[in-house]
């Protein structure tokens, strides 16, 4: 099995501030981590490898320091890391990001399953996973909470829906995006950490993946952020600290106003 896991490095906290002068996000002093959902993608990739043999390749697009995220993934049990890093990728929206990752995957060539987290904790779009599969024209299954089996070139998986779940069967190669319920990520082993330290991370630029100039970075991004702002704070609330009877009485009045 050749497994590819796509990850993203994100700020550790979602409590980011806006610089009032430049109107951009203040990134200094904010630690970076692997997107929480991608930890489940990495774990699932490693589990598939442990069951069927093969190789897990982890890829990310980002600045040079995103290499740390790849090393962390290797410390958990991934075999290889590929960093897509080029000034030409800067300013990519989800369309350009999906294209870039898809071009890198085309260069890797051999793959049976691509695993992504459901969405990233900074952008929350959930668009890049399906975008990659659309560019590669392979089947996709989003919100996967369980892989039931992989057999005879097919995967049978459970896809979470608003009402419950669906059981779907798809031929390989395919792309899945995973939710938290799918597994419990492991912590790195000492051996894994040693391996990660020594691992050679390949860095690919736009030319290496034969990406068309007009489909990457700012030029390849139809969407454009024109304004960022902090949402107005919620108005100060009212606190009831009397007896339960008194508080409930007041709440009933509020519910009545809101519901009728």
């Amino acid at each position, binding site marked *: 099995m050749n497994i590819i896991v796509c990850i993203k490095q994100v700020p550790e906290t979602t409590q980011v501030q806006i610089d009032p002068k430049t109107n951009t996000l203040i990134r200094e002093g904010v630690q970076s981590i692997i997107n929480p959902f991608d930890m489940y993608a990495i774990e699932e990739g490693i589990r598939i490898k442990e069951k069927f043999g093969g190789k897990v390749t982890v890829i990310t697009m980002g600045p040079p320091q995103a290499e740390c995220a790849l090393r962390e993934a290797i410390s958990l049990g991934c075999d290889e890391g590929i960093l897509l890093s080029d000034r030409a990728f800067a300013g990519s929206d989800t369309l350009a990001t999906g294209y870039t990752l898809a071009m890198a995957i085309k260069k890797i060539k051999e793959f049976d399953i691509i695993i992504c987290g459901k969405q990233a904790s900074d952008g929350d779009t959930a668009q890049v996973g399906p975008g990659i599969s659309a560019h590669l024209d392979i089947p996709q299954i989003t919100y996967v909470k369980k892989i039931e089996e992989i057999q005879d070139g097919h995967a049978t998986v459970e896809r979470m829906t608003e009402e419950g779940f669906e059981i779907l069967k798809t031929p390989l190669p395919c792309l899945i995006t995973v939710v938290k319920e799918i597994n419990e990520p492991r912590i790195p082993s000492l051996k894994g950490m040693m391996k990660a330290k020594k691992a050679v991370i390949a860095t690919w630029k736009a030319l290496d993946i034969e990406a068309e100039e007009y489909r990457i970075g700012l030029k390849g991004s139809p969407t454009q952020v024109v*304004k960022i702002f902090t*949402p107005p704070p*919620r108005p100060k609330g009212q606190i009831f600290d009397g007896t339960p009877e008194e508080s409930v009485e007041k709440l009933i009045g509020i519910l009545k106003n809101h519901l009728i």
Partner: protein
Amino acid sequence: MGIKIINEKCVGCKICVAVCPFQAITMVDKKAVIDLDKCTLCSACVEACKFNAIEFKREFTKTENIEQYDGVWVFGEQKKGIIQPVVYELLGKGKELAHKLHTQLSCVILGSNIKTKAQELIYRGADNVYVVDAPDLSNFLDEPYTKILVNLIRKYRPEIVLCGATSIGRALISRVAVKLHAGLTADCTGLDIEPQEKILLQTRPAFGGNIMATIITKNHRPQMSTVRHKVMKENEIDTTRQGKIIEESFAPAFFTSRTKILDIVEEVSSTVNLTEADIIVSGGRGMKNPENFAILEELAKALDGAVGASRAAVDSGWMPYSHQVGQTGKTVCPKIYIACGISGQIQHLVGMQSSKTIIAINQDAHAPIFNVANYGIVGDLFQVVPLLTKKFKEKIRK
């Protein structure tokens, strides 16, 4: 810019003839010929050709014939033949946008025996309803839904396409946008028209709602958005409204799917779908054990709401993951969110802080949940919640 058939590569298989939305391709001497007067350079044939026999130099920096794109479209998501509530919200917003653009609002529905639903969509604001009715479309599948929606958008060229930010919507529209090389903005909570350039202003939360961003798509059409549930206001039903119902049919190739559905399992454990609920009663670590969730279920039932849970409660195994609200769970936006025994970690707040009214019940007066709550009760939830259920039943739902 241009498109042409490479005769040496064309085998005369006619696939391109079938996929062209404009009947611009015919066969002459067993080779495909493109009628350039009819061709809109939509590239459907280029993708469909298995022999790379169609050469197309595509402009990626701007959509061809951008000025011809007109109209606002809403994807009419259905499940089991029932139009999903978010569609009515989108029609409400879509009507307003169409009005500002002096154009029409259309809704497109894909399903099986779905035609009967078209009239209500007109009553809710649609001027046109495009219907694709086929047994193969009864349940959502990424591939046929993508192929059909992409074809219809290429054919009718709407300037705006809106879709609910549901699990179906987010998977489908992401794929559609790539095929169309269109700009897509996820999970919008605000939509408006920029008065000068008449482009769509899409406002959405990022970083779990701690930052808002306004996004535009200037040079590409359609401008596509998925829209969060419960944010836009739906239109009243107006049974005097008139509109057109347009039935569309497709060749069998459009209905094929590599992915097959083996089973659909519904797990509506207590009440209703969390993301569609008007009222959510949620419990956290303060619930102490799984049995205690019964009092929240009682309250939710009385209020006609749904039961949510914090990550702490889900990780302790007290509630299934499908109920989890927060960063690694669901983002919800109900009219009323009642947080019981939830301290209010940032990871929880990002999943519920856009709720209209937040009520917090917690013993700890310093719990961060009180910072976002409109109303807070400092007290023992095991006294407050059952009392609230009882009083509510007595006074309001007699």
